[in-house]
């Protein structure tokens, strides 16, 4: 992300400066006007449309997240429209993926949970995600959040009594914002909230410049592992990156002022110590900025991992036995919390 952004920015600057020098040195009366017109044409002629491969990329118009066609396989509210009393007493956790990802991010956890059989996992697809580049580009962070709120309300109205939430990366601040802003609109507050590698501060600090540099570059290409193709957007439009920046900045400021969780809601954060996407200092901000209703600190576990969202190993080019061990240990810990 960084080299591409810098190279494009640098080349644009060099080209404009050289042409400016040429115009000034020519000493012709209309040089300045010509120079300005040239700059305008140059800037608007920069390609803002990424080279999308429709057959393999989620950004295209042929590959979609499977939860769009088969919501009943992913959402508990769609699968169990008339739950029994026993089902209503069974804990259900809404799993929320991160920015530019899909339901794929929580597939392994869902399969593991199904094998354990003690609770349900409802995999939400964020708004604007899982479709194509243009839809992703237009979606706001409020759009991303809507399906989480909808699923929570539906489960609540269906009578599920033990609803919890689990998020990864950007899914975490989306859950937190939804809870502290009172968007759930029910007295059935989440029993537990769990976060895996939450992002409050991005690791790549160039993201902080996206409001200045974004309009010049148009989009940023994200390197994906082979098994991640079709499950993540390859191209991140500057409009969408601006939304991400605006949103995490808003949550950071809210954390600075302090967030108090609803009565009886617990929060546990799992944070990779060497996360290449969500800066580990995000954990510090969450720990300092969030308190349980009784004034206690939230639970925090710093994990010895180099992965972002270390609970998802499927699709990665490689991972170690230690990564697998950490994944299972975390799944078991999450299950024990949900089962409380």
């Amino acid at each position, binding site marked *: 992300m960084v080299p591409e952004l810098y190279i494009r920015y640098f080349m644009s600057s060099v080209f404009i400066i050289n042409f400016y020098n040429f115009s000034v040195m020519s000493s012709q009366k209309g040089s300045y006007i010509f120079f300005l017109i040239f700059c305008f044409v140059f800037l608007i002629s920069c390609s803002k449309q990424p080279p999308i491969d429709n057959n393999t990329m989620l950004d295209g118009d042929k590959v979609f997240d499977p939860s769009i066609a088969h919501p009943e396989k992913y959402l508990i509210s769609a699968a169990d429209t008339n739950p029994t009393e026993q089902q209503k007493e069974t804990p259900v956790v809404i799993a929320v993926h991160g920015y530019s990802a899909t339901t794929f991010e929580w597939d392994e956890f869902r399969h593991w949970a199904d094998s354990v059989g003690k609770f349900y996992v409802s995999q939400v697809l964020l708004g604007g995600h899982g479709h194509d580049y243009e839809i992703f580009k237009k979606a706001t962070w409020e759009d991303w959040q809507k399906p989480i709120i909808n699923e929570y309300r539906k489960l609540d109205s269906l009578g599920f009594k033990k609803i919890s939430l689990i998020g990864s990366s950007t899914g975490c601040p989306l859950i937190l914002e939804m809870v502290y802003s009172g968007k759930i609109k029910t007295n059935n507050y989440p029993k537990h909230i769990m976060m895996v590698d939450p992002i409050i501060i991005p690791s790549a600090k160039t993201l902080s410049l996206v409001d200045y540099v974004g309009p010049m570059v148009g989009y940023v290409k994200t390197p994906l592992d082979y098994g991640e193709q079709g499950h993540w957007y390859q191209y991140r439009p500057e409009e969408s990156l601006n939304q991400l920046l605006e949103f995490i900045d808003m949550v950071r400021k809210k954390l600075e002022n302090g967030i108090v969780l609803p009565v009886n809601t617990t929060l546990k954060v799992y944070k990779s110590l060497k996360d290449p996407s969500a*800066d580990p200092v995000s954990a510090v901000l969450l*720990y300092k900025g969030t308190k349980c209703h009784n004034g206690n600190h939230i639970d925090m576990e710093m994990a010895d991992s180099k992965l972002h969202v270390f609970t998802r190993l499927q699709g990665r080019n490689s991972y170690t036995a230690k990564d697998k061990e950490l994944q299972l240990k975390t799944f078991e810990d999450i299950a024990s919390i949900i089962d409380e």
Partner: protein
Amino acid sequence: MYKSFISGLIIILIGSNAISQSLGDFYAGIRIQKTHNLYYENGITLDYTHNFLLSKKIHLGFSFFTSRLGSAYNSNAIKQDNYLVTATCIFKNEKIISPLIQVNTGWFYSDMEEKMFESIPHTSPLLSLEAGFQLHLHFPVNAKATIGYNFITGDGINGPGTLYPLFYEFSIYYKFL
């Protein structure tokens, strides 16, 4: 009594002018810094120049500024401190508004507060470049407004995560010697 006071004042002014000519000009002031999309960090700044520094075109300085006096004051923001040694080149020094460039280097420290976060990087050297203007407001007060870029930032693995690239600085100085 009145005459003695005036005489004393004149002697002090002449004396300080003589000292100033021999020792150079000393300024002290406050520095207000806003990191783009992050914190306000405020503190003190000292500045020195002398005729031998290219006829006072070059200024040498020291700044200490911290989020403790900014965004982290009475809030949950990260408490972080910056210690900077600065070298400033001021162009067209005789004008009311003078363009300037400034090179900074120094040390950054952020307080993680809890033992469990000790392994997260929290110190870093600083290297930054600023460009902007100095405004000669009304003698002996100067003000400076710049935009700066940190060449060393942190990603939370190899450097502190709250060390961002772009910042805006405003300083106001009083010439006390």
